[in-house]
């Protein structure tokens, strides 16, 4: 919870920036605009907010630079400490909740920043659904590989270093906002 609250401002600024660029308040609208114009994701504001949301994803999903999900030491627990008093199906529910949260952030990143749908023009609805499902799984795989690489190449930070991550994430999102605001693109 504490980590989430540290990362909250960055998330707000990042998503609002993407909303301003695409001119839509709903995630679906943002996705559609990105899919219609795939080259647009290379513009600076997108890049900045991508890095910002990626840091937020790692924080919210309790991955290694922020929190070690496989820890057995009570001293290093952040997310696990909440689960200590649960067992059986309650523990399963808590784990499911964490997994769903992680998938939501991964989906946000995958759909906003990897628009591959525009490459395929398929008439039949069933085939289109199948193709987009495969595409979605592929995009989730790409993001999870990125997360995994981050886990491999970094070590767990001290709890008191986490505000640094929050500050970087917020700064990048804010710079993206300013870049969009000043340059209009």
């Amino acid at each position, binding site marked *: 919870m504490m980590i989430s609250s540290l990362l909250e401002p960055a998330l707000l600024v990042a998503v609002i920036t993407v909303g301003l660029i695409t001119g839509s308040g709903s995630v679906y609208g943002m996705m559609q605009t990105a899919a219609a114009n795939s080259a647009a994701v*290379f513009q600076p504001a997108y890049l900045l907010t991508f890095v910002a949301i990626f840091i937020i994803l790692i924080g919210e999903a309790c991955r290694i630079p922020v929190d070690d999900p496989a820890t057995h030491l009570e001293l290093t627990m952040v997310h696990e400490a909440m689960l200590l008093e649960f067992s059986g199906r309650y523990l399963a529910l808590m784990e499911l909740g964490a997994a769903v949260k992680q998938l939501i952030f991964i989906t946000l990143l995958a759909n906003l920043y990897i628009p591959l749908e525009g490459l395929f023009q398929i008439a039949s609805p069933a085939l289109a659904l199948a193709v987009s499902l495969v595409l979605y799984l592929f995009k989730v795989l790409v993001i999870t590989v990125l997360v995994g690489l981050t886990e491999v190449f970094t070590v767990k930070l001290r709890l008191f270093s986490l505000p640094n991550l929050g500050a970087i994430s917020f700064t990048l999102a804010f710079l993206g906002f*300013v870049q969009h605001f000043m340059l209009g693109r």
Partner: protein
Amino acid sequence: MEYYLDSLSLLILISSFVLVANKRINSYIKTFRLQSFLLVILAGVIGVEKFLTEGALDIIVVCVIILALKVIYIPRLLKNTVNKVEYKVEKDFFLNIPIGVLICCALVMLVYYSISSVVPMNSGHSQVYLVNSISVVLIGLFFMISRKKAIGQIIGFLVLENGLFTTAMLTANGMPVIIELGMFIDLLTAVMIMGVLVFKINENFESIDINKLRNLRG
């Protein structure tokens, strides 16, 4: 094409933010190497483009020199210096890191403000380039004054020079080769002399903390 150059200049800016957020000398060196590598890619893209349009090889030559100097030689030199001086990890900065990062954000705002009073905004890509690369110069300067250890200041100087190079590369497609070569040789000598100075400071004061350089010794 322009979007890629936009993004590259932005990645250089992001890497300097990462540098400000770093705590250890070894990760300064790693981040500096990463930034120089991005610079090599930038110079390579512009150089190939210029070669295809005008048939001039000069920027590709500069690109190879940066690769040899800034990605391979200078980081190794600095790493050797650090290994020989060998001091423990301790607090190395005057301001804590979140405040440093936010100050850098404010510096970028300042650059936006001052650039927009010189040339109007949204009149082409060069504004983005100008803002990003001048921000790198200012962040390098801020990095120099916010660190206590002499190595951090060398890295700040190098990042500052990276920013200057990026500015020249993106706004004017690079300076004449002879000037670039002169700058590189200057840089190389500067870094070598600074490395030797770090040794001497360490020898005399048993630390490279510049806070201790207050007394004159005859």
